[in-house]
């Protein structure tokens, strides 16, 4: 695969009233990959995402998304991307089918609710309200709403935070399926094990800067090459493997 950039960010700076959240970030996201933005809270991940998603004005810098400039073609970009926000709610008092119909209207696209809910295995919840769903179901529904407009890229902001191991692994599978169907995925997470198994490439963000960008494998190899060793000898399984082994892989409701 020739690494064709679908998102190009050059020297992005974002100032809020009293502080600089993003201090000159540059990176590229390649078409068809799962790209991870990693870093501690307040590093500037969400701000960076929201500028790319056209939800925030940048202070300076240059961004193109699928060939469109963020300044001049925000509307074309909005039609090509799917966005899942951290902790976003949905229109109150509506069930999942009605929400899908609403979003179809907002995107100007004809999709049946069942067609979308099927993609995230929520057809049996079509008549439920969003707030009645479990954590994992909520995230899957959010992802369904990002897919309505057949986006070229989807942005997922901490989609697995607060999920149990089953729901988390289930969501990984869903995200991989989406990537395999040709959609580029940009994701933020605090879980390094997740980034390691899920992301094709990751960028570390800290203090408003990018401090490294590579494949997870490369990063690990580089660290090992410096003579780094984990204090405890690595076993061929970890506690989460034990958890999954004991409680089973099936998806839990509730």
């Amino acid at each position, binding site marked *: 695969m020739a690494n064709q950039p679908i998102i190009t960010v050059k020297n992005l700076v974002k100032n809020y009233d009293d502080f600089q959240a993003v201090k000159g970030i540059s990176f590229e996201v390649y078409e068809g990959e799962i790209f991870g933005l990693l870093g501690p809270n307040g590093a500037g991940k969400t701000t960076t995402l929201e500028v790319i998603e056209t939800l925030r004005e940048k202070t300076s810098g240059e961004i193109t998304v699928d060939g469109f400039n963020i300044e001049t073609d925000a509307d074309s970009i909005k039609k090509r991307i799917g966005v899942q926000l951290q902790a976003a709610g949905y229109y*109150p008092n*509506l069930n999942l089918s009605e929400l899908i119909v609403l979003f179809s209207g907002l995107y100007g696209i004809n999709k049946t609710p069942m067609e979308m809910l099927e993609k995230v295995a929520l057809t049996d919840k079509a008549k439920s309200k969003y707030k009645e769903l479990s954590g994992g179901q909520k995230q899957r529904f959010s992802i369904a709403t990002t897919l309505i407009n057949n986006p070229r890229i989807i942005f997922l902001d901490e989609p697995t935070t607060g999920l149990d191991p089953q729901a988390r692994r289930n969501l990984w599978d869903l995200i991989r399926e989406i990537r395999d169907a040709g959609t580029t995925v940009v994701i933020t997470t605090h879980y390094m094990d997740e980034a390691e198994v899920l992301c094709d490439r990751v960028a570390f963000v800290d203090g408003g800067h990018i401090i490294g960008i590579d494949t997870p494998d490369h990063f690990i190899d580089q660290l090992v090459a410096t003579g780094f060793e984990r204090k405890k000898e690595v076993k061929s399984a970890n506690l989460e493997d034990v958890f999954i082994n004991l409680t089973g892989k099936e998806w839990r409701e509730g």
Partner: protein
Amino acid sequence: MKYSNTRATLAIAKASFCSILRSPSAVVFSLAFPLIFILVFANIGGGGMSVDVGVAKGCDTLNPVYKALAQNKIVHLIKDQTADEMSKNLAKGSIDAIIDMKPLVPMTPIKMEVKYSAASGDKGSVLKSMLNNIFYRIQSEQLTRIQGYSGIKVPNAIDLKETIVSGREYKYIDFILPGQLGFSLLSSGVFGTAFVFIGLRLTLVIKRFFATPVKKYSIVLGEALARIVFSLLGALFIIMVGHFAFGFTLIHGIITVLNMLVLCAIGLIIFMGFGFTISGIAKNESTVPPLSNIITLPQFLLSGTFFSVTAFPKWLQYVSNALPLTHLNNAMRKVAFEGAGLGDVTHQLFILLIWGIGVYAVAVKTFKWE
């Protein structure tokens, strides 16, 4: 496929309408409260003055004065209280007077004793003038009889001619219903709009909308459309219940209803401006009710919702006449009862227009999207 802003607007309107229908507070405030008020006040009834008169134990009930009082619709005679209870109630003003009459002895005056209460306001005077009327009639009858024997003519001091102009009966429902309609629109416009927008803002629903190609005006327009449709259906329902159950006057029938609905829409649009402003000022959902009450309560009390503004002292009338709901109510009553068209209430519409411009100027400044 070309992107359609109309389609996006209608999608929001439809979602919002479903959401309003499923929110209990919207339905209660817009429909249940006005109907309860109408039910209560329509049954208290128009011109409903009554004078409660205690009848003392042993009071003669066969004389013409008592009979005249018993036939009077305003006087309510109370006979089932003890003398002790009666005098206590008289002192409190819950009985307006106590009467006592000695049995009739032919050829002597009727001996009557009336106790009034300083605690019961004007009602004592009403009874007094009614009694004077009765006395005069009895006296006149006696005089006529005496004249029959003597042949001396006593000239009339007054030659009274009374006529009643035929007209439509102005029922209390004709007053209360437009007021309730106005208030229903005010609370739906202010509370409803403020709650919806602050909710959508705080739960990031609007932010998620902004990640779609939808325009800002589509969001506002869609929400407004849903609220207008809901409120007009509510108004129509209230008018129909008022008309068919309580005899609310609709002079030109369906034309009057349509004129009223146009007024409702105008009023609601202005009131929604207050809602937009509050949603911008309020920090969170719990600050919405106090802010909304600041807007709605004074108008509830001062805009002629329950009683006519003319009942207030002059200085308070100036305040009342500055409030938008007063003018919406006045316009609504003119249209409903006097059969005015929208062209006949331009004065009221003009003042509403000024309010509209002012409110939206503030709303545009204070409204927050995120």
